[in-house]
């Protein structure tokens, strides 16, 4: 891992547990609640939040995975199509409260795409947003309901979330952008 560490494994764990408590508190229970992780790192985060809810409430909240590739607003701008990672929403969205889970909230464009994708699957009663890191610089009127950590950044910086399930290590890092790390998927 390179860059300056802004969250350790322990901090990620505590933030995830706190978010799980906030979600249940806001919903006043777990009835009608479902978590949807945005591919890729939102998916393991959603599973962790669900595990924490199961521990504290004794209820298994359904978890889904959402790929927003087909809903991106920059598909005609990118040089090559991004790899599609797959969507799996094994529950009825109609009338449910969906908590979207992602690793980093940045421009808000990913969340806009995710909401467009979700409503093609049904009509949730509400859609909420939980993120591990909010780094600011929104380009759309979108805010998170649950935030692990607010991190002031400049646009020249890159925030990288590493999760055991995908990266084999834990931690959130901040780094100066270089040519080679220009993101292929919209960060945020």
């Amino acid at each position, binding site marked *: 891992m390179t860059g300056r560490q802004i969250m350790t494994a322990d901090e990620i764990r505590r933030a995830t547990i706190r978010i799980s408590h906030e979600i249940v508190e806001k919903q006043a229970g777990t009835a009608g609640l479902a978590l949807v992780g945005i591919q*890729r790192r939102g998916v393991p985060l959603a599973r962790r939040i669900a595990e924490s809810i199961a521990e504290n409430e004794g209820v298994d909240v359904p978890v889904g995975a959402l*790929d927003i*590739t*087909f*809903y991106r607003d920059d*598909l*005609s701008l*990118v*040089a*090559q*199509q*991004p*790899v*599609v*990672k*797959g*969507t*799996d929403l094994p529950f009825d969205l109609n009338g449910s409260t969906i908590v979207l889970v992602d690793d980093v909230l940045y421009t808000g464009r990913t969340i806009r795409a995710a909401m*467009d*994708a979700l409503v*093609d*699957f*049904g009509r949730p009663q509400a859609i909420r947003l939980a993120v591990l890191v909010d780094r600011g610089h929104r380009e759309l009127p979108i805010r998170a309901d649950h935030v692990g950590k607010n991190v002031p950044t400049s646009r020249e910086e890159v925030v990288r979330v590493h999760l055991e399930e*995908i990266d084999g290590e834990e931690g959130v890092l901040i780094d100066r952008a270089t040519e080679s790390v220009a*993101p*292929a*998927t919209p960060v945020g």
Partner: protein
Amino acid sequence: MTVIDRADTAIEVPIVDSPPDEQPVAWNHRHLLDVDVLSWADIELVMHTTDAMREVLARPIAKVPALRGRNVTILFYEASTRTRVSFEVAAKNLSADVVNIAAATSSVTKGESLIDTVRTVEALGAQMLVIRHPASGAPYLAAETFGGSVLNGGDGWHAHPTQALLDLYTLRSRFAGGSLTGRKIVILGDVLHSRVARSNLWTLTAAGADVWLCGPATLLRGFEAWAIRGAAAGVRFHVTTSIAEALRGADAVMALRIQKERMAAGLLPSLREYAARYGLTRERLALARPEAFVMHPGPMNEGVEIAPDVAAGSQSLIEEQVRNGVAVRMALLYLLAGVRPR
């Protein structure tokens, strides 16, 4: 009868890991004219993207905005139902705008050349062009002129790349472990006139299958020589006129349509004779493995190359081929749309 021996060493099929995280896909083809220029990694990427499209097709609203604002023009100089409709449905599922041109009712009947027609549809806004033409090579000519992407929907006897890819996808989804390595796959019937057979030869041999071409000698002309030449280049397949030899122990049988419209005089004594000697009947299918799959690219001449009870039987994947065809074409349109126009 000629049998080209397969080398003892199995063809090495590279295993490609799922594409790397957050990297753009390594797809560098502006056109899809045939499968012969696709690397194994390209084919794996098409298969992977097709999986995602199948998931889209299973949604309550089977439509995504990935190709919103794109113009896909479908220009067919030959009759077609499934390929044309399949492309149209695929493009619409991706929210593209679709323009359909049937040559029979267009200015082509007034003598407009292919190149002029391509220029015209481009001036009218076409960004992706799906073309079917009775002349082998016509899509290549169109690709020289057209500024966007050309997809070959079948040209003469030459190539039908989307059919080959959907056949490969269908077989992979049915064979244990998704592997065709060592599987005996028979392509049966009018191989001579078949673009489906020619394109399938590339993909099936690349996947490591044990491919057998079977039919009357008049409809295999040229393939024995190709089998000998191809073996040198690593494309290995068998050619036989014996249907019993071909079907024995087969894992899948692809029956081909007898192409009456392309049939020169003297190649077949009669359709009845053909059906009697090479028709895929239940009795003949019993020579294959009990769980062998039956495929047909369509349209079928039932009772000629395939018996109706075989086509509709439990071993038949024919409807699945049609369903997968939409997903494969969505995947290809999506991948091609990512490549910059000229």
